[in-house]
């Protein structure tokens, strides 16, 4: 499917979502307007007036899309990025933890996968723990990581990054174990007939074979790293970052602020996944991958 043939279906869905959203805005924010009218002992507004008012509340139950976008515009373009009220500033706080956590998670994941593939004892002992680690709710473990690290004098970026690491190493381990084991019997036999060492087999066969698996895992890992960083900011009283914005927004009923932080997080995730996607296609192209639909 080419990019242009995708635009119409995607835009149709977007239009549908926006339409439903606006309908919900009226429906969910109307009770407040009726309530106000009742308190002021005046007649409730006519429908067209009601619709206008539901889309201009200061603390709506559900903000209208344009309110969110105006808020995002005001807090990104119109604010200096050093300002504590700038969404760019908060995004950067979260992004830096995300990227650090992603890097550590990737390194850890790849290292564990290499160990698991080459060492039977590690295969039997580490893999079950890797899987178990993901059954523990991250919300439960995040405050503990922050508190414990704080007690030993580590605070700031690293504890949040480690929560990202905790989530992101998992898809990398699973993907890379599969990738490093993807060479078929004949290819491994061939290496054996050359009396290749383990490291030669690794660099000439296993590692290149695992590249498609690695990038697929990285796409999941980078998105989940962002989730980890945001979660790391929420239960710990962080004052900056998208997680802190979400939390502060909910304390003070600033729904527009919550939604704009949410949109920022989604946009950030999309950009990160796209960057990994570009790296993916670049590397596979460099590796001489057969182009889609090509015939020899």
């Amino acid at each position, binding site marked *: 499917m080419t990019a242009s043939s995708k635009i119409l279906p995607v835009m149709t869905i977007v239009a549908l979502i926006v339409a439903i959203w606006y309908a919900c805005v009226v429906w969910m924010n109307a009770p407040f307007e009726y309530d106000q009218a009742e308190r002021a002992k005046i007649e409730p507004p006519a429908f067209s007036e009601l619709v206008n008012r539901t889309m201009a509340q200061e603390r709506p139950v559900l903000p209208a899309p344009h309110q969110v976008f105006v808020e995002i515009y005001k807090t990104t373009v119109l604010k200096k990025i050093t300002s504590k009220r700038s969404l760019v500033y908060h995004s950067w706080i979260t992004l830096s933890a995300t990227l650090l956590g992603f890097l550590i998670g990737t390194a850890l994941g790849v290292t564990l996968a290499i160990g698991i593939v080459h060492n039977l004892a590690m295969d039997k002992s580490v893999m079950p723990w890797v899987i178990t680690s993901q059954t523990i709710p991250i919300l439960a473990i995040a405050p503990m990581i922050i508190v414990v690290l704080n007690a030993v004098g580590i605070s700031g970026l690293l504890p949040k990054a480690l929560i990202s690491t905790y989530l992101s190493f998992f898809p990398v381990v699973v993907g890379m174990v599969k990738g490093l084991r993807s060479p*078929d019997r*004949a*290819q491994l*036999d*061939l*290496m*054996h*007939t*050359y*009396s*290749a060492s383990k490291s*030669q087999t690794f660099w*000439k*066969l296993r590692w*290149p074979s695992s*590249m498609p698996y690695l990038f697929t895992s990285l796409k999941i890992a980078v998105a989940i790293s962002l989730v980890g960083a945001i979660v790391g900011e929420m239960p710990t009283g962080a004052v900056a970052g998208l997680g802190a914005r979400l939390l502060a927004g909910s304390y003070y009923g600033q729904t527009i602020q919550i939604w704009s932080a949410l949109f920022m997080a989604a946009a950030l995730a999309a950009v990160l996944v796209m960057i990994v996607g570009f790296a993916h296609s670049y590397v596979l192209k460099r*590796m*001489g*991958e*057969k182009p889609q639909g*090509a015939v*020899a």
Partner: protein
Amino acid sequence: MAETVVSAQDLSLTFETNDGPVHALSQVNLDVHQGDFVSFIGPSGCGKTTFLRVIADLEKPTGGSISVNGMAPEQARQARAYGYVFQAASLLPWRTIEKNIAVPLEIMGYERKDREERIKRVLDLVDLTNFEKKYPWQLSGGMQQRASIARALAFDADLLLMDEPFGALDEIVRDHLNEQLLKLWDTTNKTICFVTHSIPEAVYLSTKIVVMSPRPGRVTDVIDSTLPKERPLDIRETSEFLAIAARVRDGLRAGHSYEE
């Protein structure tokens, strides 16, 4: 008598499976001499591929003895005594043809300049000059298999082990490659062990045909070919050729494996 390259005495290999032992090879006695072209033919399960894998130290025998160039298979493998060609070309898809041929050379530590010369020479041998910069997917199945033969020829192994290398190719390509292989065998003076399912292929190529039968995998007949070394494709219509083919067929039938 030429030097003995492979020598097997009472060679047996039994796989232990959940359904009980499988006798892949039973009491195989065979000598392969320098410069021989030996074909192994027989139905599935007769142990012909297993025998090749034992020579290559890809399987360990459970009984009897085998020597390759006078050494144990493991030492022979470490001494890089043989090149192995599998049924699938097994080229690395992320390497060009020349880089694929370079894989064993890199592993064995040949210098860059030496590598380049060798790659050029073997590509010429298999008629793939000008395709060195192509990726495997850009080549037909027959060309891929030629590249994998070039890869096995690139280092100095005097023994070439080929496991149904042309099994997945159509007959016209197969005829062509058979002709090329004979020429290559003639110019390089290698010893070749060749596993096949096809009677005409075995008779056309070989100086010695080993007929095998399954359950247990064993040698039922060893036929020394009387055909001349010079073999045009139409030799396959001569009475001499047909007589050898008939003997192979009889040998296969005596193993009465197809009726089971």
